[in-house]
């Protein structure tokens, strides 16, 4: 896990890329003037706001991050079709349940991304991270944490935990190297 960037003038590369594209999308143009303005905004805003933001871990393997993004997008589409079938089918057959997934990640930023992907993919909504403590925000504290998940149709608990850990958590661990 690395918190500091290589260049001092670029404290948050992902935020800069996001600001650049959001400015171009909001103006709906790629003219030279707007590109210059977007580059200026993308450099100045992270610099000006970095003193009061907590340091977040950087993406160390960008290629893997992009591949993981497309995997998650594909999963969102298939998962939505599954959930639509479950909703339209008979309600009495559904077996909902709460399960706890043990987490290997320690920092709050990767855990947030994991919780969001779990919320958007097959029949699961993440509810809480247990146990909660203040040291969690800095990524300190050594006790084992759990992600509490509500499942719409729980068939095989262990298989679901294994899927979440292998498909979504392992790539995140590699991307952030933590």
């Amino acid at each position, binding site marked *: 896990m690395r918190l500091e960037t290589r260049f001092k003038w670029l404290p948050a590369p992902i935020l800069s890329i996001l600001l650049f594209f959001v400015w171009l999308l909001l103006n709906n143009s790629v003219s030279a003037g707007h590109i210059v303005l977007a580059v200026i905004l993308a450099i100045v805003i992270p610099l000006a706001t970095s003193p009061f933001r907590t340091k977040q871990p950087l993406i160390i393997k960008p290629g893997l991050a992009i591949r993981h993004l497309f995997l998650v997008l594909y999963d969102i589409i298939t998962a939505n079709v599954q*959930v639509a079938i479950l*909703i339209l089918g008979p309600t009495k057959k559904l*077996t909902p349940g709460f*399960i706890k997934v043990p987490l290997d990640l320690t920092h709050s930023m990767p855990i947030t991304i994991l919780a969001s992907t779990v919320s958007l993919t097959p029949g699961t909504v993440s509810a809480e991270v247990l146990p909660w403590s203040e040291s969690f925000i800095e990524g300190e504290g050594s006790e084992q944490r759990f992600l509490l998940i509500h499942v719409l149709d729980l068939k095989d608990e262990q298989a679901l935990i294994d899927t979440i850990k292998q498909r979504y958590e392992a790539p995140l661990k590699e991307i952030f190297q933590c």
Partner: protein
Amino acid sequence: MTEWIISILLLIGGSFVLVGSIGLVKMPDFFMRLHGPTKATTLGMAALLTAAMIFFSTTQSGFSVKEILISLFLLLTAPISAYMMIKSAIHHKLDSIDRTQGKDNIEDEL
């Protein structure tokens, strides 16, 4: 041709939004109701906005991609609002239906 693509995307989007609302009405307890709006409605909106993007790109002069911004925003915020709602539901100790498994996993420490 583009008219067909726009129509199919619009119908897919509309039916996903409708399925999300049906789930909201049909399911027996709050935790199960949450699944419809967070997933089905978000994907339905993404399909609708893609249709709008293609529509405005073909009918009006110039390319239009700014509709992506709304679907990106909805995709980012849907899990967060779902998380806030399920947290407040757990805090208020809402009843889940009897056949829910693993109820003892809930620990409310607030």
